[in-house]
């Protein structure tokens, strides 16, 4: 049994080696083995896919694998704690997102223990309804809420996380009382399509297929400008509700990592983010508009500002 497994492993390693040795090595001795990227979301989700996509050009450049390690659940705390337990040797990264900022704001984790390395993606979300819904526009939503406050239920993923913060902020600005109900990403979609939920909040990438087929109708976009892919969907901002929060994705590393290795990593990420293949993946989810590459200093400034923003929002929401 173990023999068979070992046989397969060896075959896989051989194939991998054949594929990878073709590329020139960028750094002399770093990375010399697999780099692990710990994240708090499920395998196959947005962040997992993002890591796999950005890893492609990096693997080509270095000949080493960058693999996502999913430690899902627990509101993201176990993933972060696992990261903190790893040595500062440059072979463990952690994914960072607004969920981590919120955990920091709520005192569940301490973000000063991580060095923000690079920020790569900046997504934008939508409020979506089923095609059978009576809600056809944000006005309908506001009218329904005015008639019976708290009557509309919005599906979100995660509890007391980014989605809750965004809906809470919208409630604050629009004077509504939309109630959030946490679901797994797939159940949220099926419950919206099946009419069990009134609305759902999700980014463009995962819902694109259902938007194109007309099964899900986006009502409003949370961003500064409309998406070229959805020219008829208004932004909340233009309707008078200044909610432009978006989910961004970046990476952090242990602060006492070797400086030369940090340099190498940042430049690897910079090249990977500009890679044609990766750009294509990004464009498929309409991620190219707000995504702007940030190195350690910029990202730190950005992160500090985000911490301020979310601390204030979570405070207002009564957390």
């Amino acid at each position: 049994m173990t023999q068979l497994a070992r046989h397969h492993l060896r075959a896989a390693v051989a194939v991998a080696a054949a594929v990878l040795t073709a590329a020139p090595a960028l750094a002399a001795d770093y990375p010399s083995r697999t780099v692990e990227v710990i994240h708090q979301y499920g395998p196959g989700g947005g962040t997992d896919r993002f890591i796999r996509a950005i890893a492609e050009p990096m693997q080509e450049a270095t000949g080493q694998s960058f693999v996502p390690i999913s430690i899902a659940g627990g509101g993201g705390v176990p993933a972060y704690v696992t990261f903190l337990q790893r040595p500062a040797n440059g072979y463990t990264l952690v994914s960072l997102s607004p969920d981590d900022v919120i955990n920091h704001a709520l005192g569940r984790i301490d973000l000063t223990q991580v060095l923000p390395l690079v920020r790569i993606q900046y997504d934008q979300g939508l409020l979506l309804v089923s095609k059978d819904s009576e809600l056809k526009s944000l006005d309908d939503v506001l009218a329904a809420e005015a008639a019976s406050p708290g009557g509309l239920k919005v599906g979100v993923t995660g509890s007391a996380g980014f989605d809750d913060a965004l809906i809470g902020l919208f409630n604050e600005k629009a004077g509504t009382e939309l109630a959030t109900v946490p679901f797994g990403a797939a159940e949220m979609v099926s419950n919206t399509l099946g009419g069990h939920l009134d609305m759902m909040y999700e980014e463009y990438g995962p819902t694109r297929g259902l938007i194109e087929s007309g099964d899900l109708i986006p009502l409003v976009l949370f961003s500064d400008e409309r998406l070229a892919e959805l020219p008829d969907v208004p932004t909340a901002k233009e309707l008078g509700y200044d909610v432009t929060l978006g989910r961004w994705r970046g990476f952090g590393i242990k602060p006492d990592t070797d400086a030369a290795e940090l340099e190498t990593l940042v430049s690897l990420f910079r090249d990977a983010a500009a890679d044609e293949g990766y750009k294509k993946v990004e464009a498929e989810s309409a991620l190219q508009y707000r995504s702007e590459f940030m190195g350690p200093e910029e990202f730190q400034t950005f992160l500090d500002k985000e911490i301020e923003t979310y601390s204030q929002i979570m405070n207002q929401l009564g957390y």
Partner: protein
Amino acid sequence: MLDAFVSAAGYMVGNPMSFLLIIFSVVWGIVFGAVPGLTGIVGVALLIPFTFAFDPTEGMLLLGGVYVGSTFGGSISAILFNTPGSPEAACTSLDGYPMAKRGEAGKALGIALAASAVGGIFGTLVLMFAAPPLARLALEFGPAEYFALAVLGITAIASIGGGSLIKGLIAGLLGLAVALIGLDPLTGVARFTFGNMMLLTGVSFIAAIIGIFALAEVLQRFADGPPKGEQMAQVSTQLPSLAEFLATKVTLLRSSVIGTVIGALPGVGATTAAFISYSEAFRWSKRPELFGKGSPEGIAAPEAGNNSAVGGSMIPLLALGIPGSATTAVMIGGLTIHGIVPGPMLMQNNSDLVYSVFIGMLLANVLMLVFGLRAARLFAVVLKAPYQLVGPAIVVLCMTGVFALNNNVSDVAVMLVFGGVGFFLKSYGLPVASFIIGLVLGPIAEVSLRQGLILADYDMMALVTRPIAGTLLLLSALSLVYGIWGKLRRPPSDGPGNAQPEAS
């Protein structure tokens, strides 16, 4: 549809590579399913980078084959070593291992293999011919229906232990209690974690079952001392005779239907399908007293259930673009990397791909029969070694497997603790089946009940008056009453004090 089918078949015939890929992926899947801790999800995730080298259709054939192979593979180690290689095989241990211990390992593996193939082919056929209507049916399932489904499974805990009502309830409620550990899924409050950050994710299910089944069995065997004449050396994997196979036909059909429908529901997959199939097989069985002691139905039900859930969980993936299980969620990632947008348009825009996957999955199920026999023989060689060597090897393999799952030492700790829990359950005659059912279905019942209540503005009646949910709940209530009535009428033989009405 016929055009698409013929065109896809043409693609496959004109592309011999695709057959090689299916063979490779089924074998790869069986190995990943059978080795504890590797699991089908890991098998699929590891292959995703390799799909870049192929076109999307070949890539999907590869992933689909692994999914099919791994779902069966888990049953090999579950039956031979009481070590479920993957969560969906946990249920197969319950009757597979006792049968193997009797010296009928070959028959147990044969039943598992045949049931897997029947379930797998059933699920794939439904996927081919009825995906859109079944996807619509799945959309009818809101939180209230998920809750009712979980309750239906949970009502079996009292009776499934094969004897004592109270012992079944104790074990089942313990399982439900353990399922509460972790972050509250709706409000994000920590429960029973005692300040331990790693417990926030809850008890890792795979670590827990490996502990309860494999580790506890090793402890038990060493506690019992040298075996008294129980021999498993004879492990040729003969398929069950036609008569034996036909004896389970009702169970196979029922489990295949249950598995396909549960597979089609987003968020629940093969593991839930296996357990609900098992408890329904028990409920309707003419010989329920054999369950847990090596009943052929007890092997056929979970294996037909979890393999038909494979086809089932592809239904929402292909019809709606949303994953029906954790493994299909990884497959969606693989599709999008190839630039294919999963969604309702997939069947129209990429019909070649979709129909090739159908044909591929059918082929994979047939190949599974061929390679399953070989793989089982290979694994069974280990049984010829003395248990003093096999036992420690199982422990080492479980520890490394559980660690490799997330590179996480705390999962290993969970496994060790649950080894103790399993030993404790066995020592006191508490049925492991009830405990595991509580552990699997408890979280589904809890989360969906609370979601459903929020959606209904906390109106309990609104939940139970929904047609599907109401029917399922009524069935649960009736079967509970019937079960208890049955117990009262013919008290089981294994001890006094079993038939106490207040235990309901």
